[in-house]
């Protein structure tokens, strides 16, 4: 599919439909991020035999709203000796790059409304996975710029840690994706999901690749055990220690959005995306209609994503933080060779299969 058809020959209806989709995805990720903070606190509480927030509304359901209102009404503080523009740019970039991933994830099959076929993917570009990879590699700028602009040693240390950590883990992540790409033969996420609908999910073809990708995803989203950039008890918050009010809120929010969208990416790449497990989607679509099918598929995708978000939290409240040399050792001496090995083995298997060698 040529890019021209998506943004140069835009007719009004397509524009409106894409705009609605963009608004939906952004609102959706914001709401999910909001309730992830609540879920995080609840999960942490349950794992530590506590109750967690339960005062705002029934079961504390309104807690995220209360937190948001609190952040909005806090005083905005900009350090005197910082560059004000960059100080504000930092959280904006963090939020922007976190949101951008949502553009290429297929949230469901095509639906049929007002006599039009509407794809539930904002942009089905043929380099979808590379796009994700590019956006993720840009995510570090928000942290670096914010950390540097704070003019604070601890912030700078946090920013440095973030930069080196993300660069180190990007390599292993990229190579583990390459192994997956050799199997699927496409870079488009939508096609990958379609392949997984009919065949096995990619997790069964690439278990090692998935494991590497998972560990790297933890590192890229700065979640424990890789939360060295913000390590509260060494760096007093790391890159966001000078931030207050909603700018801090943006950083915290972008972490949860990253978590949500990287879960979505992992589900799409390895767990069949919006594919309903044990059911032939096409047959189901014929019996209940395309729109209902898309709804169920969206729900299934969301359920899978929720499982991953839970996994993120589960790991956070179990595994302690790495030391810095351990982090680098793991990235360069373990994950990178492993992913190279995975790529080699995958390549060899594909070659065997193509030449019809059986053994």
């Amino acid at each position, binding site marked *: 599919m*040529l890019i021209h058809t998506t943004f140069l020959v835009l007719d009004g209806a397509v524009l409106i439909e894409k705009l609605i989709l963009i608004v939906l995805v952004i609102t959706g990720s914001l709401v999910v991020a909001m309730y992830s903070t609540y879920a995080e606190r609840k999960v942490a509480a349950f794992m530590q035999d506590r109750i967690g927030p339960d005062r705002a509304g029934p079961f504390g359901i309104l807690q995220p709203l209360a937190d948001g209102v609190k952040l909005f009404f806090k005083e905005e503080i900009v350090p005197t000796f910082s560059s004000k523009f*960059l100080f504000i740019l930092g959280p904006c970039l963090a939020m922007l790059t976190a949101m951008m991933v949502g553009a290429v994830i297929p949230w469901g099959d095509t639906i049929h409304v007002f006599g039009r076929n509407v794809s539930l993917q904002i942009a089905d570009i*043929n*380099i979808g996975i*590379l796009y994700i990879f*590019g956006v993720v590699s840009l995510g570090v700028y928000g942290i670096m710029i914010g950390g*540097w602009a704070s003019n604070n040693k601890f912030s700078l240390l946090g920013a440095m840690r973030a*930069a080196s950590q993300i*660069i180190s883990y990007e390599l292993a992540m990229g190579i583990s994706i390459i192994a997956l790409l050799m199997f699927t033969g496409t870079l488009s996420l939508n096609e990958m999901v379609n392949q997984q609908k009919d065949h096995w999910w990619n997790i069964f073809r690439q278990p090692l690749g998935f494991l590497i990708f998972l560990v790297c995803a933890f590192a890229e989203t700065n979640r424990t055990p890789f939360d060295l950039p913000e390590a509260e008890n060494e760096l007093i918050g790391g890159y966001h220690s000078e931030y207050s009010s909603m700018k801090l809120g943006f950083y915290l929010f972008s972490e949860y959005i990253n978590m949500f969208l990287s879960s979505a990416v992992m589900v799409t790449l390895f767990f069949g995306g919006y594919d309903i497990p044990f059911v032939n989607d096409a047959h189901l679509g014929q019996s209940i209609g395309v729109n209902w099918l898309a709804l169920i598929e969206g729900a299934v995708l969301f359920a899978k994503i929720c499982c991953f978000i839970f996994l993120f939290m589960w790991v956070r409240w179990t595994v302690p933080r790495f030391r810095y040399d351990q982090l680098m050792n793991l990235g360069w001496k373990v994950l990178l060779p492993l992913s190279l090995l995975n790529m080699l083995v995958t390549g060899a298997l594909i070659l065997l299969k193509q030449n019809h060698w059986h053994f």
Partner: protein
Amino acid sequence: MEITKIIFWFLTALALVAAIGVISSKNPIYSVLWLIVVFFAISGHYVLMNAQFLAIVNIIVYAGAIMVLFLFVVMLMNLNADAEPIKNVYMKMAGVISGLTLMIVFVAALSASEQHSTIIRPGTSVGLIENLGRALFNKYVVPFEISSVLFLSAMVGAVVIGKKDPIKRINE
């Protein structure tokens, strides 16, 4: 004006402004940030030429990795306007002359290649990943592999340099 042209001129202006920003800003951090903007504008141009793979690789490799390392180093060295050494007039003159020479070379090269400039036009699929892959692994496979060996040797060299000297360590 059609939308492609508007985007083209916007990106061109952005690239030029950002490039001027790179050389005119006092603080090296701002230079690096302007350079990132330049890369984005150039990636936009690639997209206009339907070379999406090149566009995204430009972002991943240059904006996402190399510039992060640049920023990393510049931030750690804590360079700022005060630390900049004062350059004498001769250095400035030499800079101006070499810059002008480079510009003449560029202008000459561009004017010589005027007749070929219509080859790459919007809508071609040369830059798409499939065609690019075929070209790299069929026609240009030898240079491709040689360059990868070059990278490998560079990597080994970096590891050798970066490794601590075992004899020295014992002496310490």
